[in-house]
């Protein structure tokens, strides 16, 4: 019997089809993954992502510690609630996990601290790694399992959330810019997400999660399962840890080069040396988007054949409900141009190769 979030009974009551997800009982869908996906693109959907791991980092060295631990630089976070997407690398520059860091308290003051949201499937190894490297720093790491995490995504998400908040929470939403969060009492509301739509990710005490979930449902927000979450993030060209990258893959071969803060050069972070070597020698592979205009569905691990160049592999693929055909992320040789073939269950089909992003704000973003 797997672990349950505070919303477990809600999922059952709302007809969720529960599956095991990294040891948690989570809803895959509530009837139709495709419909939930389209609701998020058109109006608003909500996802229980309480299985994700929240870790607070406090102490006088919190900033120095994270500047050493993470490939992106928390020094870039100048205001309370500001978010940063980053990789946590090993010494060989393999990706241990990808995560979001929020600056909390008052950045730049002694009251500053940080909140990390890491993947549930990598929880233990992340915590072990973080502990291992905390030694020489004055930091305290604390997991926050008592927090629920609900993502509300879609063009109408923020408007609908606003109708169910109290005055203090509502005022936190005022002027909240993209990739920015704000605390409201025990709650934390952030304008982040994993769908390519506008929306919020809200952390709140799990004792308040059921009421909030029900209020959102009453406000017309569609409950969505992890199935739709996956197809939405794929259309948005966002990586899934364990599929699109892992410890054997460099962020430079996973479309994560933009998350590496090379400057200032004197900042030493774990994996930096290996990354610099890779950068000098040149990375052999890149992560691209594949578009299959015809019938059939691209799936993870299918072979990609690039005539005259070599071979690659689909890292995630699915039917894209917004587009009505299949798209995929694939790791291919750097010399790959704009065409390739995929071995689709023994049949070779031609695909176009594009930058890994297919849909943003409800709209197709490639030619």
């Amino acid at each position, binding site marked *: 019997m797997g672990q349950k979030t505070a919303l477990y009974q809600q999922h059952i009551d709302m007809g969720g089809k529960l599956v095991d997800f990294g040891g948690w009982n989570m809803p895959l869908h509530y009837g139709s993954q495709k419909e939930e996906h389209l609701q998020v693109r058109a109006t608003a959907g909500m996802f229980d992502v309480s299985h994700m791991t929240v870790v607070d980092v406090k102490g006088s060295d919190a900033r120095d510690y994270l500047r050493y631990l993470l490939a992106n630089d928390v020094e870039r976070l100048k205001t309370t609630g500001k978010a940063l997407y980053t990789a946590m690398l090993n010494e060989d520059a393999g990706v241990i996990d990808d995560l979001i860091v929020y600056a909390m308290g008052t950045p730049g003051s002694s009251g500053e601290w940080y909140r990390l949201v890491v993947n549930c499937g990598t929880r233990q190894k992340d915590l072990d790694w973080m502990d291992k490297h905390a030694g020489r720093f004055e930091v305290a790491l604390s997991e926050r399992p008592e927090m629920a995490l609900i993502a509300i995504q879609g063009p109408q998400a923020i408007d609908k959330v606003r109708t169910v908040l109290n005055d203090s929470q509502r005022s936190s939403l005022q002027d909240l810019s993209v990739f920015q969060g704000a605390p409201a009492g025990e709650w934390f509301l952030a304008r982040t997400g994993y769908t390519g739509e506008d929306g919020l990710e809200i952390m709140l005490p799990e004792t308040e999660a059921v009421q909030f979930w029900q209020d959102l449902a009453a406000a017309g927000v569609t409950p969505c399962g992890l*199935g739709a979450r996956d197809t939405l993030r794929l259309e948005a060209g966002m990586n899934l840890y364990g599929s699109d990258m892992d410890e054997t893959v460099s962020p430079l071969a996973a479309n994560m080069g933009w998350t590496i803060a090379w400057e200032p050069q004197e900042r030493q972070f774990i994996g930096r040396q290996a990354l610099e070597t890779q950068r000098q020698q040149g990375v052999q592979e890149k992560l691209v988007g594949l578009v299959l205009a015809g019938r059939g569905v691209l799936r993870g691990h299918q072979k990609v054949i690039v005539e005259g160049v070599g071979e690659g592999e689909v890292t995630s693929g699915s039917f894209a409900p917004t587009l009505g055909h299949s798209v995929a992320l694939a790791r291919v040789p750097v010399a790959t141009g704009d065409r390739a073939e995929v071995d689709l269950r023994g049949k070779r089909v031609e695909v176009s190769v594009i930058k890994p992003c297919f849909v943003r704000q409800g709209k197709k973003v490639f030619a």
Partner: protein
Amino acid sequence: MSNIPAELKYVSSHEWIRLEGDGTVTIGITEHAQDQLGDVVFVELPEVGTTFSLSDDLGVVESVKAASDLYAPLSGEVVEVNPELEDSPELVNSDPYGDGWFVKLKLEDESELDGLLSAEGYAEVCESEE
């Protein structure tokens, strides 16, 4: 428990078979099968006139989640395929025993019908998979 109409026959690979009484059968996938697959997005069906032997690959059902082979539950020749599935594969989800049918076969060997499962027998197959 999903709907398993008593008047149909079944095979353990989750196809249903309706005997039309004129030497032909209509074939589809069960409610249980479509529920396991999730949203069906493409159905690949054979050409009319193709002949199949028992357990041959008859086609492919692609859902958002996975690709799944469709097996010929009986030997025979395809006499009709459901033309609606090309543009409306979701019929397999919404009406698996009706508008979501796949193909009609002209039977080659009616004795193969003895090997099919009753609704009761198929219910046991589903339960054993739970």
